[in-house]
């Protein structure tokens, strides 16, 4: 059976995409080991067999095959872009011209943008080919991908000897699960409070949140505009560097876009770390972390020590207030941003006898529970009589958190923490307890409030065989140091096998 399957695959030139990553695909396409069309076909076949994971909201296979032919022509004529002919999955929060963009919400179930987001435009210009749109928590609000109107996404990882289905993290859970399951070698994602890094940690993938302002927010469905930032989920640190280079860049359509040079980040893969320094925040040591994650953190510190890095204990005294400050600021911005969904200009409409009831019914039916709760919470903290006590207070605390980090970066090059307090949990386990769900982001949220770049890198497996992630944080626009330091984690950790293909429809 196995031999005949192998033979059949050979005849169809099916490629085993499980063993590939972004940079190896780039090199193979250049060498002519396979064509873009063969590659796209192989991903399509794998996606079709993986419906159980529920990662893609929409697929664009026909377009992808057409684009692949064009890319193959360009490769032959030496006109290829830097990532020519490589497939990509796009989080369903990025507007894609002519392709449904839903934010995994009922209120946008039929929305077809007439324009392209800057980040996807940049990626397509570099030659990448979209396979489809990936699920996320509704409007990126959640830490488990369970709030998607399309239903939960299933993590390709399971505990050893268990069939319990686990969450892939969120809000970029479709992106993290798709990369972990080899349903695309790169997925776009967004991070407002941890939505790239936490799902990456839960799925054994690399998740990068760039500096606020590094990637344009134009054309990305807005959640909390002062915190939202786009970034990649990939299999390796090198792939993350390649992806950032393609996504980033100044954009005059986003007033918060930074006019800062985009370097060749791949140059920082083999850096000597001797004499550099890493800070370990005391306050994070006091958090409620699982035993395995605490041990893994200590191991990682040891790896850096052995590489000649100076390890320093640092203080981030206001970080313990980051989570409550975030849950005032983010809902406040969301309540304002989501006011645009009124059933008039685009999106779902539920008729009413007058305009007011049209608005209220449309928004009641169109938004899910988590989104509604955050809009109400945000409206409350911005309303007259409460604004100073909540919103202004949170913004002042935000400044103190920001200053804590700036102070720390006077003495260290990077900060090292775990990405999450636990590994992936079961579907349905935390969804009815908002505060418990929010606590998932305790290690990632401070970074967004300060606008810093950070990366989550797989650093080992816990005692039940689930992936853990370690987080590196650096100063504004110092993504290159994330890559420098990040490579050592990949080199030092125990080999992380891929998840078994238990979900594949035979």
């Amino acid at each position, binding site marked *: 059976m196995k031999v005949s399957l192998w033979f059949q695959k050979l005849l169809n030139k099916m490629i085993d995409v499980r063993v590939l990553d972004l940079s190896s695909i780039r090199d193979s396409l250049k060498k002519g080991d396979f064509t873009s069309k063969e590659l796209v076909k192989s991903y399509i076949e794998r996606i079709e067999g993986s419906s159980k994971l529920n990662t893609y909201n929409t697929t664009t296979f026909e377009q992808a095959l057409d684009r692949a032919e064009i890319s193959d022509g360009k490769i032959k004529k030496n006109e290829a872009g830097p990532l020519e002919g490589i497939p990509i999955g796009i989080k369903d929060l990025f507007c894609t011209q002519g392709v449904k963009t839903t934010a995994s919400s009922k209120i946008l179930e039929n929305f077809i943008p007439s324009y392209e987001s800057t980040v996807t435009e940049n990626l397509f210009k570099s030659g990448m080919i979209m396979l489809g749109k990936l699920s996320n928590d509704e409007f990126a609000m959640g830490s488990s991908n369970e709030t998607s109107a399309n239903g939960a996404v299933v993590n390709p990882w399971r505990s050893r000897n268990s069939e319990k289905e686990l969450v892939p993290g969120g809000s970029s859970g479709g992106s993290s699960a798709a990369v972990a399951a080899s349903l695309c070698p790169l997925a776009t994602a967004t991070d407002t409070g941890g939505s790239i890094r936490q799902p990456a940690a839960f799925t054994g993938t690399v998740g990068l949140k760039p500096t606020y302002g590094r990637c344009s927010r134009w054309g990305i469905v807005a959640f909390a505009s002062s915190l939202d930032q786009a970034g990649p989920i990939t299999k390796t640190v090198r792939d993350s560097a390649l992806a950032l280079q393609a996504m980033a860049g100044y954009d005059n359509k986003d007033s918060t876009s930074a006019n800062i040079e985009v370097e060749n980040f791949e140059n920082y893969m083999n850096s000597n770390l001797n004499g550099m320094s890493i800070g370990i925040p005391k306050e994070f040591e006091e958090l409620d972390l699982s035993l395995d994650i605490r041990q893994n953190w200590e191991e990682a510190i040891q790896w850096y020590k052995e590489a000649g890095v100076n390890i320093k204990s640092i203080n981030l005294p206001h970080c313990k207030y980051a989570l409550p400050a975030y849950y*005032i600021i983010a809902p406040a911005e969301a309540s304002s941003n989501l*006011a645009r969904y009124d059933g008039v200009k685009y999106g779902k409409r539920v008729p009413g006898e007058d305009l007011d009831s049209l608005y209220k019914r449309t928004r009641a039916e169109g938004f899910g529970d988590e989104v509604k709760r955050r809009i109400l919470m945000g409206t409350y903290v911005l309303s007259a009589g409460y604004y100073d006590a909540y919103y202004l207070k949170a913004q002042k605390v935000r400044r103190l958190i920001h200053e804590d980090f700036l102070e720390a970066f006077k003495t260290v090059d990077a900060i090292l923490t775990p990405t999450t307090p636990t590994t992936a949990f079961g579907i349905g386990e935390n969804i009815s307890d908002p505060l418990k769900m929010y606590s998932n982001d305790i290690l990632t949220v401070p970074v967004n409030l300060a606008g810093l770049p950070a990366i989550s890198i797989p650093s080992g497996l816990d005692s039940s065989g689930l992936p853990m992630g370690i987080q590196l944080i650096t100063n504004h626009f110092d993504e290159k140091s994330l890559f420098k330091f990040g490579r050592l984690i990949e080199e030092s950790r125990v080999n992380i096998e891929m998840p078994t293909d238990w979900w594949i429809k035979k």
Partner: protein
Amino acid sequence: MTISKDRILKIANLSKISISEDQIEKLEVEISSILNWVETLNEVDTENIEPMSNSLTNFLQMREDIVNDGEKRSDILSNSPAEDESFFVVPKVIE
């Protein structure tokens, strides 16, 4: 800090979201517990601290105040749930 039923109804109205009776009770409990939790911020001394609305305000870009886009009527109307030629249609607002 707990939030009253009346207050929930008021913010639901401000948010333009209709909510049912059983949802009100659930929201009362959930939002009250979130408000209790965020109250820990009161431990922080923020005397003379400027509120921070954005981590990189010095990057806010300005440009000339000139028209640089337009003629997008059909694009803008293309996703409208109800339109009439070049207008969005809504229930009658003025009697």
